[in-house]
């Protein structure tokens, strides 16, 4: 990964209290602890300095010893804003209590991959962040060593204090001014700590924004304001495939507070002094639309997907051996089809963005998972240089993939450019749920040939709207374990806009695969857990074809750990369901336990084993793991989203069900002990959840599930 550590070097910069809009977007004066601190720690807390000394793109140190660590990646609730600075602080060798965290804006010179997506932030940032800390530490130690006229290698550091062999000490604060002037050391070979010596990484640290969140401070894009700002609520086509013919804004303009109505493309923006007026204005617009492209509906989607499953493609994603020959020679063939709906992301904070476009610059502020990509598209849209564009990232009320797409930022930029005003676009919940960029509907067919009680052929066919499984997913387990193996994918166009949704492809495929495996194991009279372990051993001992996309030992590790903690060998007959999946570089196994409450199955508990390498912040990791499991269960059970005449039939939570507190199971998490570099947790625990639940439901009710949402399966749940 490219390292830009020598950028961002300035001698010192003055303290800046707030960025624009009265919001503490930038500097957060609160320390990185927010619970009751021991008195001696509180008393020793460092004062806010007069001057900051820059060391690299991530670290500023004040003369009081207070340390600012920049968090470069966007924050969607995955808590990289805490975990990534922890990594820097570790190698810097400061006390976490002396650290304040500042959200960095988009800065393509200083940082690479300022993206929230793919569960990659920590994995891809690991080395760079450690080096950022180590580099600054070295500069500080060398400065002290020079002062003392000793060898730097004889000095040590503890809690931001450099110590000589003879017991002399100087604090980082006292060294910062001089140290920051040094040449940046070579980062290629900089010495990093032995993980055995970690005192921050691997410990539980609280969310750096915890205080702000529980006291209602302005944090989110929707909270951002600017003097003279207009609120813009936009009328968009009421169905996919429609274009705007004409509109009448007379009633809209009469509304108190509405100042302007602007058409841009097939959309119309109402600009007002406050949100409510803008919403009323939008509702008062009258428009006529023309159906330009096909108006799709759920019946059409379902039929199209299922029809494609019966066909092969010209270019399979993977092919080992000869499945047709194997099917011909099989004793029996088993075939199952699974189907998933489109799903909205449902971030609790609806889409919004602030833009102020002037001749001098383009100022953007708001919630975005991909600021760099968005900057490029704004530059193109407005015909401006990227140097004129700034993007400040606010905290996001959920991302889940929706905020990868920046369409809302482009709308704000365009409206601001036309109106020549500072603009905040806000989506109502209805706007948000109807606006698109959904998790695509899909269907999967599993066809397996069995001979002499062994699986001799495995054919997976995918039918997916606007995409195909990506990267090496075609070589996921159980590929490599089966002699004749084929994966076909049909990428079918839909004019319904779609995008990545937490654990793309895996978020449904994992359920389908793991539910199918459960049924397959049963038909072979094998225990579901042993069934996976046997296949894994086959892949290890007798691998088929090109390298497969998983590590057998890591899979075995999580499967055995989960089975052990759930006492699987004793319990597997009673309302337990097993599932395991590898996605986004982490391995997960889950066992769901159900209870029957007057014949209605209730998810009581999920036991989960995770291999994500080194766990940077256990407290935060647990939150992600629990969240992913409940998210997976909730959408598998309830996520129902239909279309008619090109329009989604749910536009708010009275017509769309999300999982609630009473339905959330208890979660028990076990980590596989590991010294491996950390891998992500934002997504990996979601994919196996639906399968574990489905398999537990089968165990409790005798009913197999092939479609989501499960609640629509006849005779299953209330």
């Amino acid at each position, binding site marked *: 990964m490219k390292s830009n550590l020598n950028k961002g070097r300035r001698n010192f910069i003055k303290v800046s209290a707030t960025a624009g809009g009265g919001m503490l977007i930038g500097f957060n004066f609160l320390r990185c602890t927010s619970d009751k601190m021991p008195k001696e720690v509180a008393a020793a807390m460092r004062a806010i300095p007069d001057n900051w000394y820059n060391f690299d793109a991530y670290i500023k140190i004040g003369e009081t010893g207070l340390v600012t660590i920049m968090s470069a990646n966007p924050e969607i609730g995955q808590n990289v804003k805490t975990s990534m600075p922890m990594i820097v602080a570790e190698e810097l060798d400061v006390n976490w209590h002396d650290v304040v965290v500042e959200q960095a804006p988009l800065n393509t010179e200083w940082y690479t991959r300022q993206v929230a997506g793919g569960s990659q932030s920590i994995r891809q940032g690991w080395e760079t962040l450690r080096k950022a800390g180590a580099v600054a530490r070295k500069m500080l130690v060398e400065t002290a060593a020079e002062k003392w006229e000793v060898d730097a290698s004889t000095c040590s550091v503890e809690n931001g204090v450099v110590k000589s062999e003879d017991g002399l000490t100087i604090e980082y604060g006292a060294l910062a001014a001089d140290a920051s002037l040094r040449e940046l050391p070579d980062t290629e070979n900089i010495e990093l700590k032995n993980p055995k010596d970690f005192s921050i990484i691997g410990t539980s640290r609280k969310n750096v924004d915890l205080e702000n969140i529980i006291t209602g401070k302005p944090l989110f894009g929707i909270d951002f304001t600017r003097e003279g700002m207009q609120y813009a609520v936009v009328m968009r086509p009421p169905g996919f495939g429609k274009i705007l013919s004409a509109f009448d804004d007379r009633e809209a303009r009469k509304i*108190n507070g509405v100042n302007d109505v602007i058409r841009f493309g097939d959309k119309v923006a109402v600009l007002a002094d406050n949100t409510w007026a803008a919403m009323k204005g939008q509702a008062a617009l009258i428009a006529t639309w023309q159906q330009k492209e096909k108006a799709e509906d759920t019946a059409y989607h379902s039929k199209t997907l299922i029809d494609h499953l019966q066909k092969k493609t010209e270019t399979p994603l993977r092919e080992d051996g000869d499945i047709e020959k194997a099917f011909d020679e099989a004793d029996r063939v088993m075939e199952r089809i699974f189907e998933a709906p489109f799903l909205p992301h449902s971030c609790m904070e609806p889409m919004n963005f602030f833009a102020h476009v002037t001749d001098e610059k383009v100022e953007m502020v708001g919630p975005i998972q991909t600021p760099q990509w968005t900057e490029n598209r704004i530059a193109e849209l407005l015909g401006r240089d990227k140097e004129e564009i700034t993007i400040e990232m606010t905290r996001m009320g959920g991302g889940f993939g929706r905020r990868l797409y920046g369409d809302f930022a482009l709308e704000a930029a365009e409206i601001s450019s036309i109106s020549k005003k500072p603009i905040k676009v806000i989506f109502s919940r209805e706007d948000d749920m109807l606006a698109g960029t959904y998790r695509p509907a899909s269907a999967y067919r599993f066809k397996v040939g069995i001979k002499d009680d062994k699986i001799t052929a495995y054919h997976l066919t995918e039918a997916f709207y606007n995409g195909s499984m990506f990267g090496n997913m075609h070589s996921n387990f159980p590929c490599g374990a089966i002699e004749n193996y084929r994966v076909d994918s049909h990428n079918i166009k839909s004019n319904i806009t779609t995008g990545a949704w937490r654990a793309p492809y895996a978020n449904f495929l994992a359920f389908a695969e793991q539910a199918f495996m459960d049924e397959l194991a049963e038909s072979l009279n094998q225990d579901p857990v042993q069934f996976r372990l046997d296949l894994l051993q086959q892949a290890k001992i007798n691998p088929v074809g090109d390298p497969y996309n998983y590590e057998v030992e890591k899979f075995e590790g999580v499967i055995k750990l989960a089975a052990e903690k759930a006492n699987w060998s004793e319990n597997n007959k009673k309302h337990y369901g097993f599932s395991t999946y590898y996605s986004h570089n982490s391995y997960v196994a889950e066992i769901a336990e159900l209870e029957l409450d007057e014949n209605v199955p209730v998810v009581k508990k999920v036991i989960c084993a995770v291999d994500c390498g080194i766990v940077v912040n256990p407290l935060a990791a647990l939150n992600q793991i629990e969240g992913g499991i409940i998210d997976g269960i909730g959408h598998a059970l309830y996520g129902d989203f239909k279309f008619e005449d090109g329009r989604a039939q749910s536009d708010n939570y009275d017509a769309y069900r999300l999982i609630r507190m*009473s339905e959330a199971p208890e979660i028990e998490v076990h980590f596989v002990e590991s010294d491996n570099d950390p891998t992500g947790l934002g997504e990996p625990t979601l994919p196996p959840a639906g399968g574990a639940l489905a398999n537990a439901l089968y165990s409790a009710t005798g009913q197999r599930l092939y479609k989501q949402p499960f609640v629509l399966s006849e005779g299953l749940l209330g």
Partner: protein
Amino acid sequence: MPTYNLNINGQAHTVSADSDTPLLWVLRDNLNLVGTKYGCGIAQCGACTIHLDGDAMRSCAITVAAAVDREVTTIEGLHEAAKHPLQDAWREHDVPQCGYCQAGQIMNAAALLDQVKNPSDQEIDDAMNGNICRCATYTRIKTAIKTAAKNM
């Protein structure tokens, strides 16, 4: 535009707003109290929960006119020093993920604990089921409510 005299967190405010304006938007846009969040506008998600004379209410479903002569409490005013037992419990258990729903969760839970000293799991579920957490911090919220109940 009519004006309304409101009592928010013990302070008097006079606001100018259309009579049909939900209290939620008066809080956010007129008074810059943005801790109370917009999630759905139809009282289905709980993100906008405030107290009206001590009772938990969805501020998206009350007009500004209905708040006149009533005591409105928002997250910003739940506790003078931000040390309500729920806020302390939220600190202890590091509850939030994205954080957007959390003020509404805390306000709803505060009203529950005012009325029920030691709520059972069922009572907590029933009271909190109207508050969506998309990130699913539900287990931590429940744990924090139980911790706070001990310290009320």
